[in-house]
């Protein structure tokens, strides 16, 4: 398969990025030290190219109803200007993707799926919206997405926003979005992210991406902003206790397995694809492995795929894990047998034949204080 590149590929190359394949895309893994990039986001700000993510518009009089049928949540009650985290499942309840839905007007929604699932989600939305007065448009190929994340993100973004919009920008709430002029042209500015810090995601036409990327880097130069790759994005999201599709969320798991009970709306009258299977899944939880956080008691990290043991018996599997740069000890997500899932339960990770002590803990592992 030919790997796709974003509109910012040349900008990354100039910055000396190490590239990696991710969801069929050539994306920056890191520019210099991934630990420095991670720390920059925790302490100042980081800039991410997320243009590989999908952007699918659902518009029309029945747009809200179509999304409520296509996804596990209800969207008629989502306020204009707000965003909602949701999941799309198959008829059998298996998770096809996790995504964010923005309502930008009463009849206009933007759905943002993961890169590797964007085409599948666009196709499913099209199929599932067929009975509704709504159009589904996959704009992924010509939409760029740049994330500006970190405690100084708001201050950096404000330098590119007209004075009269500063108040609106400052008032923008977490999981909300509005259209603003950024660096002299319209952008959809969302206060969302995948890092556990304050921050923004900027949706723009890909023809503008390179210029805005450079302008943002220049605006942040004296404020500690550096470009960040997917390595830092992964360590930041793991510390923040956020799942990654393909690791914690897969086609073989239901939202209940992943602990996303509150994302699934099983209210009477909410008919959606997969509802019958999810009702059954909710009522038959017994014995199913559950997603937990683990803290390493030693220095060695448990990695995706490593077995979790109790008294020598395999009781689970790690889905994501690495040393936490912020906390200074290993952290991991794992699916484990429910009788071991209580916080404080001691378990072992099989680190390539050597058992190492881990403890079940609450997630997120890291929560920002400011």
């Amino acid at each position, binding site marked *: 398969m030919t790997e796709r590149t974003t509109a910012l590929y040349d900008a990354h190359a100039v910055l000396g990025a190490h590239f990696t394949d991710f969801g069929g895309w050539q994306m920056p893994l890191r520019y210099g030290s991934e630990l420095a990039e991670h720390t920059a986001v925790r302490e100042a700000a980081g800039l991410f190219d997320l243009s590989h993510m999908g952007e699918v518009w659902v518009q029309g009089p029945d747009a809200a109803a179509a999304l409520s049928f296509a996804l596990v949540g209800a969207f008629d009650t989502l306020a204009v200007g707000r965003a909602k985290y949701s999941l799309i499942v198959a008829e059998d309840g298996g998770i096809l993707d996790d995504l964010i839905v923005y309502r930008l007007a009463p009849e206009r929604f933007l759905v943002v799926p993961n890169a590797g699932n964007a085409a599948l989600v666009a196709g499913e939305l099209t199929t599932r919206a067929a009975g509704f007065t709504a159009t589904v448009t996959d704009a992924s190929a010509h939409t760029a997405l740049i994330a500006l994340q970190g405690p100084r993100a708001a201050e950096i973004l404000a330098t590119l926003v007209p004075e009269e919009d500063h108040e609106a920008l400052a008032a923008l709430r977490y999981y909300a979005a509005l259209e603003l002029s950024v660096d002299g042209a319209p952008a959809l500015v969302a206060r969302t992210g995948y890092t556990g810090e304050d921050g923004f995601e900027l949706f723009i036409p890909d023809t503008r991406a390179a210029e805005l990327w450079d302008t943002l880097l220049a605006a942040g130069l004296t404020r500690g902003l550096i470009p960040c790759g997917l*390595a830092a994005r992964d360590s930041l999201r793991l510390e923040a206790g956020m799942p990654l599709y393909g690791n914690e969320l897969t086609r073989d798991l239901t939202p209940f397995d992943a602990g996303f009970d509150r994302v699934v709306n099983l209210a009477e009258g909410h008919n959606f694809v997969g509802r019958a299977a999810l009702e059954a899944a909710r009522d038959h939880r017994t014995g199913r492995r559950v997603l937990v956080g683990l803290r390493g008691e030693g220095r*060695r*990290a448990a990695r995706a795929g490593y077995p979790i043991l109790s008294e020598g018996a395999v009781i689970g599997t790690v889905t994501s894990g*690495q040393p936490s740069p912020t906390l200074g000890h290993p952290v991991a997500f794992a699916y484990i047998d429910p009788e071991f899932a209580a916080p404080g339960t001691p378990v072992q990770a099989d680190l390539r034949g050597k058992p190492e002590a881990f403890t079940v803990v609450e997630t997120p592992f890291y929560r920002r204080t400011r």
Partner: protein
Amino acid sequence: MSTVAPNLKYSAEHEWLAAGDPATVGITAVAAEALGDIVYVSLPEVGDTVTAGATCGEVESTKSVSDLYAPVTGEVIAINQAVLDDPALVNGDPYGAGWLFTVAVTAEGPLLSPEEYAAANGVAAP
């Protein structure tokens, strides 16, 4: 710093060997760069016998774990405690402060010259 240092021998598994009595072993800048930020190193113990081509430790970065292979056979004379305490030394100075252990060599494994190692990894020769 150049990616491949002169006056060293190299294994295909990215260890370097500085001849001497004892000889010094480390991992190359090529390997350190590919691994990313190194956060944990496990080394053989002083007095252990390492065997050329066999694993003798681990190098763990934020993203992955790699085996450490002994480039030579012999007894471990010293290990670099500073690297165990601060694994980032390997990234910062892989051919200097980031050395890993010394060994009284009884036999060498198959080793490459700096030019051969550079060519095998598509980087500039020293």
